C-alpha cells in the first residue's frame, strides 16, 4: 500500500465507520474524527521527515523526481478509431506539495477539535467533514488532471452542505453563493482540461493523456491541436493558450480569492461554523495558490511570463483592497476574512515575480497563513460560542476578563501583522523582496508593485491594533452586561491545547524558516528555471 494513497483515503475509511455506527453512539463520532485526523497528521509528518531534498528531487516538470508516487491505470477505454482514453490514478508529491500537505493535515486536526461546538446531526457533519478531508489532501497529491479535477469538485459537495446546514442565519445564501462562484470557475476549467487532454499525447503509449506533468512538456503537444505551443490557434479571436491560462487562472483565483472574485469569502466565512471557517481559510485558499503554481504556471509558462504584470497587479490590488475593507468592518469574523484576502495577495505577488525569493515567500505565506488564519478563526469561534455575538463594538476591555484568551489573540494578531519572530514576517518580506527584485532579474514586475504591497503591512497593523484597542483594552464594558460577563469565561483546556501548538508553530516557522524553505527550495528553483526558459 502506497503511503500517499493511505494518507488520502484514511479519512474516508473512518467516514464509513461513522456512517455505519448507530446514531446512539454519536458521542464517539468526534473522537473517531479526531483520531482519523491525528493518524493522517502522523502519516504526513512521517513523510515530511522522510522527504528527500536535492536537485534530483525537485519535481515540478520531472515525473521521476516526484516522491511517494503511485501510478496505476484507472479508466482505460478503447475508443476504437479515436484511440484509447487514458486516465490514471497518479499521485505523488514534490517540494511544493509536501509543506502544504503537512499544513493541511495539521489544520484538519484543529478543525476536528473545533467541531466540538457542533451539536446537531453529528453523523452527517462528521461524515461530510471526513469526505472533505480526503478531497483536499487528494488535490495536493494528484498529478493526473482528471484525478485532480475529481478531488477538486469533490470538495464542493461537502462544503456546500457543511455551510448550508450547520451555518449561521444567512447560511443558505452564503452556501449557494460559494457554490456557484466556485462552480463557475471549475466548469470552464473542465473545458480547458478536455482541451488539454485532446492536445497532449503521452509519448510512451501514444494515447491522449491527462497527466499534468506530460502537459508541461511542449514536445508532447500534437501539432495543430488547440493548445499546441507551435501552431497559434485562436478561440473567439484570442490566442488559445492565453484563453486556457486565463480560464484556469480565474478558477483558482476564485479560490485564492483574488479581488474582484472574492465576495463569496466574507459571506461564507461569516456564516460557516468555526471548523468550516478554519478549513476554508486554512486550506481552501491555499488550493487556489497551489493550483496557480502547479497548473496555471507550469502548464502555460509562456502565458505566465507574459501575463505576470497583470497577476502581480491583481496581487497588489488584493493586498490593499482587502486591507482597507478589513479596516471598515465591525464584525470580527468579517474583518479576518478580509484580512485573508489581503494576506493572500502577497502569495499572488510573490508567484508573479517568478524569482526564487518571491515564490518561496509565497509558499511560506501560504503555510503561515494556513496556521494563522486557523488560529484567528478559532479565536473568533471561542467568543462566538460563548455569547453568539461578534460585533467589535459590543465588547470592550476583554483583556481584564479573559487574560489568557487575550494573550492568544495578541499572538495571533501580531503574528498576522508580520511581527518578526513569527512566520508571516519572513513570508511577506521575501514575497516583497522577490517582487522588487523581479525587475532586475527578469523584468516581469515594475519596482513600484513591491513598494505598494508593503503598504499592506502598514494597514494590517492598523486594523489589527485598532481591533485590539477597541475590543480588548480599556475598561470592561459588554453589550450583554452581567450575563455576558458570566458566559465569557477564559479559554478551557481543550481550547488551549488547540491554540498553543498553533502559536508555537507560527513562532517556530518564524525562527526556523528553513523548516519550509529547505523542503521547497529545490522545487522552487526548478520551477523558476522551468518557467524562465520558455
Amino acid at each position, binding site marked *: 500500500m502506497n503511503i500517499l494513497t493511505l494518507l488520502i483515503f484514511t479519512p474516508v475509511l473512518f467516514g464509513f465507520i461513522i456512517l455505519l455506527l448507530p446514531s446512539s453512539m454519536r458521542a464517539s463520532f468526534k473522537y473517531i474524527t479526531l483520531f482519523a485526523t491525528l493518524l493522517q497528521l502522523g502519516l504526513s509528518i512521517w513523510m515530511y521527515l522522510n522527504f528527500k531534498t536535492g536537485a534530483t528531487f525537485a519535481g515540478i516538470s520531472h515525473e521521476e523526481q516526484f516522491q511517494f508516487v503511485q501510478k496505476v491505470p484507472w479508466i482505460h477505454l478503447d475508443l476504437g478509431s479515436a484511440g484509447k482514453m487514458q486516465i490514471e490514478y497518479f499521485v505523488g508529491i514534490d517540494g511544493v506539495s509536501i509543506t502544504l500537505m503537512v499544513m493541511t493535515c495539521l489544520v484538519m486536526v484543529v478543525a476536528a477539535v473545533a467541531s466540538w461546538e457542533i451539536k446537531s446531526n453529528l453523523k452527517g457533519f462528521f461524515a461530510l467533514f471526513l469526505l472533505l478531508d480526503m478531497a483536499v489532501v487528494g488535490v495536493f497529491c494528484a498529478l493526473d488532471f482528471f484525478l485532480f479535477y475529481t478531488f477538486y469538485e469533490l470538495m464542493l459537495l461537502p462544503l456546500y452542505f457543511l455551510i448550508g446546514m450547520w451555518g449561521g442565519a444567512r447560511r443558505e445564501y452564503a452556501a449557494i453563493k460559494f457554490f456557484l462562484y466556485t462552480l463557475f470557475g471549475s466548469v470552464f476549467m473542465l473545458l480547458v482540461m478536455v482541451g488539454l487532454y485532446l492536445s497532449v499525447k503521452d509519448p510512451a503509449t501514444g494515447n491522449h493523456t491527462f497527466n499534468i506533468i506530460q502537459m508541461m512538456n511542449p514536445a508532447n503537444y500534437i501539432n495543430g491541436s488547440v493548445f499546441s505551443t507551435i501552431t497559434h490557434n485562436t478561440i473567439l479571436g484570442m490566442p488559445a493558450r492565453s484563453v486556457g491560462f486565463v480560464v484556469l487562472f480565474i478558477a483558482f483565483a476564485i479560490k485564492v480569492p483574488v479581488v474582484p472574485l472574492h465576495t463569496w469569502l466574507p459571506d461564507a466565512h461569516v456564516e460557516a461554523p468555526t471548523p468550516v471557517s478554519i478549513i476554508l481559510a486554512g486550506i481552501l485558499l491555499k488550493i487556489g495558490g497551489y493550483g496557480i503554481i502547479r497548473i496555471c504556471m507550469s502548464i502555460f509558462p509562456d502565458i505566465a511570463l507574459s501575463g505576470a504584470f497583470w497577476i502581480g497587479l491583481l496581487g497588489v490590488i488584493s493586498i490593499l483592497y482587502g486591507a*482597507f475593507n478589513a479596516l471598515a468592518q465591525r464584525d470580527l469574523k468579517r474583518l479576518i476574512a478580509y484580512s485573508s484576502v489581503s494576506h493572500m495577495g502577497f502569495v499572488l505577488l510573490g508567484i508573479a515575480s517568478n524569482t526564487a525569493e518571491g515564490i518561496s515567500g509565497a509558499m511560506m505565506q501560504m503555510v503561515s497563513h494556513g496556521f494563522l488564519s486557523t488560529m484567528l478563526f478559532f479565536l473568533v469561534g471561542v467568543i462566538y460560542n460563548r455569547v453568539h455575538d461578534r460585533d467589535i463594538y459590543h465588547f470592550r476591555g476583554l483583556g481584564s476578563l479573559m487574560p489568557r484568551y487575550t494573550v492568544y489573540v495578541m499572538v495571533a494578531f501580531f503574528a498576522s501583522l508580520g511581527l518578526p519572530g513569527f512566520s508571516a514576517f519572513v513570508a511577506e518580506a521575501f514575497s516583497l523582496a522577490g517582487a522588487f527584485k523581479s525587475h532586475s532579474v527578469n523584468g516581469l514586475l515594475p519596482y513600484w508593485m513591491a513598494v505598494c504591497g508593503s503598504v499592506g503591512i502598514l494597514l494590517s497593523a492598523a486594523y489589527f*491594533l485598532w481591533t485590539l484597542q477597541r475590543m480588548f483594552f480599556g475598561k470592561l464594558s459588554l453589550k450583554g452586561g452581567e450575563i455576558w460577563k458570566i458566559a465569557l469565561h477564559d479559554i478551557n483546556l481543550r481550547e488551549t491545547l488547540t491554540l498553543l501548538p498553533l502559536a508555537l508553530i507560527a513562532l517556530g516557522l518564524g525562527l526556523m524558516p528553513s523548516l519550509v524553505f529547505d523542503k521547497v527550495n529545490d522545487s522552487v528553483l526548478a520551477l523558476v528555471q522551468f518557467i524562465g526558459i520558455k
Partner: protein
Amino acid sequence: MNPITLHTDAQTVTLAIIAVALPFAAFVVNFLLLGKSKASGWVSTLAILGSAVLSLNVFFRVWDNHTIHMQQLWFTIGATKVQVGVLLNNLSVLMLVLVSLIALPVHIYSTAYMKDDAGYSRYFRYLSFFCFSMLALVVVDSLITFYAFWELVGFSSYLLIGFWYDRDSAVQANKKAFIMNRIGDIGLLTAIIILFTQFGTFDLYELFKDGGLVAHSFFINGEWAAGLNYIPSVWHYIAFGGIFLAVAAKSAQFPLHTWLPDAMEGPTSVSALIHAATMVAAGVFLLGRVYPMFNEAELTTLAIVGCFTAFMAATIALTQNDLKRILAYSTISQLGYMVMAMGVGAYSSSLFHLVTHAFFKCLLFLVAGVVIHQIKHIKEDNSLDIDPQDIRHMGGLRKKLPLTFIAVLIAGLALVGLPLTSGFLSKDGILIQAFDWADGRSFMLSIIPIMALLTSWLTAFYVARLIFKVFFGELRLLKAFPSLQIHIGDGHWAYKLPLILLALCCLFPLFSLNPFSYETSWLYEAFAPKHAAEGQSIYHLVIPALVSVVSLVIIFCAYVLYIKRGDGMVVKNGLLFRISYNEWYIDRFYKRIIVKFVIWLSGVLYWVDRKVIDGFIHLLEKIGLAIAKATAWCDKYIVDGVLWLAAELVQYIGNFARRFQGGKVQYYLYSMLLAVIAVFILKLIWA
C-alpha cells in the same frame, strides 16, 4: 587572521551573545516560572547587571580595536543564503554598553517605582524583553535581523506604553506609537529590499564597511550601478527616503514625531529607558550603521529635517504643562540635534551626543518619576482630584527632595549644555561643526546652524522654566488646598542610587579630561576621521561662549519671570503661544485629515465591495433568475401549451364523437343519413 586572535574573537562574540541573551533568559524565567511573584524584579535586574558587566568586558576588548564579524547560516532561499551573526565594532559595543548601563539603574529604580503595581511581574517581563531586543538590535550584522529587532523594540515599546491597558489614553497611545513606527518600518523594509536587489546581500558589514559594496557603487547616466547591477538612481533616493522614514518614526523626527509625547502614558521608568535614552536613539544608530550610503543631497535633507525638528520641539516644550510632555519634546529636540549632526557630517559628535543625552535625559525622567510619585502620594493621602504630572500644581520641592533637586540640576545643566557637564562637550561639538559645515555653503543652509544655536537657547529657557516651576517657590497645591498633609521625601535607596549613578555620568570627567574640548574626548576621537585640520576655526571659541553666556542670561530671565514676578507675566493667548501650546497643530492635522481620510477610504471601498462587486454578482443572479423565469414561462405556456392544446383537442374531439355512440338507433340512422348526404355534397363540389 591568526588562530589566536580568532580564538579571542570567538570568545568576545560569545560574551556579547550572552550579554544579549541574559535579559531574554530573564524574560523566559519570569514568564514561565515566576508568574506573579515579586522575585521577577530581581531576576530581571540581575540579568541586566550581568549584561552590563559582560558588555563592559566586550567593550574593552573591541573598542578602538579591529572589527569582529561572525555569522552563521540561518536559511537558504533560492540561491540567497541568509545569515545571522554578530558585528562588533566601535559603534555596536558603544551602544551595547550604553544600553545595558542605562538599563541597570532603571531596573533598580523600577523595583521601587512599580512596587505597588498589580502588574509588577508583567512589567519586568516586558522590560527584560525590551532590553533583549535592544541589545540584539545593536549587535546584529544583517539587515534582516536588524529589521526584526527594530520591530521587536517597537513591539516591546507598544507593550510598555499600554502597560496600564485598562486606561483608554494608554491604549490609544500605544496603538498610535506602533502604527507610526510601522510607517517607518515599511520605509526600512523598502530600503532593505532595494539594497538587497542591488547588492544581493543583507550583510551590514559587507555592505557598509570601508571599501564595501556600497562604497564601490556609483552613479552613471542616471543609473545607480553596483558591479553588474544597474537600477535607476531614483531608487537610491527612495532607499534613502525609506531609511529616513524609519529614522523619523523611531527617533521621533518631524513629521512622524507625534507618537512620542503620547507615549508618556507608559510608566515613567519606561519613558526614561525606552522613550528617552535607548530606543528612540535607535534611529540615530541606524544612520550610523548605514552612513556610507548617503550622498550630499541626502545628508543635507537630514540636516534640514533634524534642525527643524529640534527647533519645533523646543518651541513646543516652552509652553507645555505636563512634566513628562515637556521632557518628551525636549527628547525630540535633542534627537533632532543628533540627526542634524549626522547630516552636517558631524558623525562622531552625533554619537557623542547620543551617549551624553542618554544619561542626562534618563536622569531627568527618573527625577520626573520621583516627583510624580510624590505628588501622587499627596493626591492619594488627601484624596484630591488632580493630575499629578501637571507642573502648575508643583513648586518648592527642592526642600522636600534635596537629592532629587541636585540630580535635576546636574541633568538640566547638561541638557542646556553648560560647561563642566557632558552636554556641553557634545552639544558644542555639534554646533561648531554645523557652523563649519555651513561655511562656504549657500545662505539658506547657513540658517541651519543659526537655528540650532537658537534652539539651544530655547532649551535653556524651558529647562529653567521646568526647574523653577517644580523645585522653586512654594508648593502651589498648598495654596489651593491649605490643609494638605504632606509626607514626602527622596524615598528608598532604590530611587536614590540610580539618580546618583546617572548624575555622575552627566559630568565631564567620564568623557573627557579637558572639560572645554570635545575633541579630546575618547568617544569623539574614536569615531572622528583621523586628520588634523580640526580645531582651527573661530567657532571653537565663539560658539561655546555664546551658548553658555546667553543661556545663563536666559535662565536669569526665566528666574525673574517665574520666581520673582510669579506667573502673571506670561502672555497666554498670543498666536505664537497657541501654536506652541497646541504642538503646532500637527497631531490635530493627522487626526482630522489623514486618519479620517483613511477611514473614509476604507468605508468607500467596503461600499464598493457590497454595492459594486456584490451588486454585480447580484445583478448576474437577477439576470439568471429572470432568464430562468422566462424559460419557465416559455416552458409552461409554449412548450407545455402545445402539448396541452393537443391533449385538449383530442379530448374535445373525443367528447364530440362520443355523442354519436349514445345507443339510440334513431341517432345512428340519422347520422348515417347525414354522412351519406355529406359524401354526396362533397362529391358534387369536387367533381
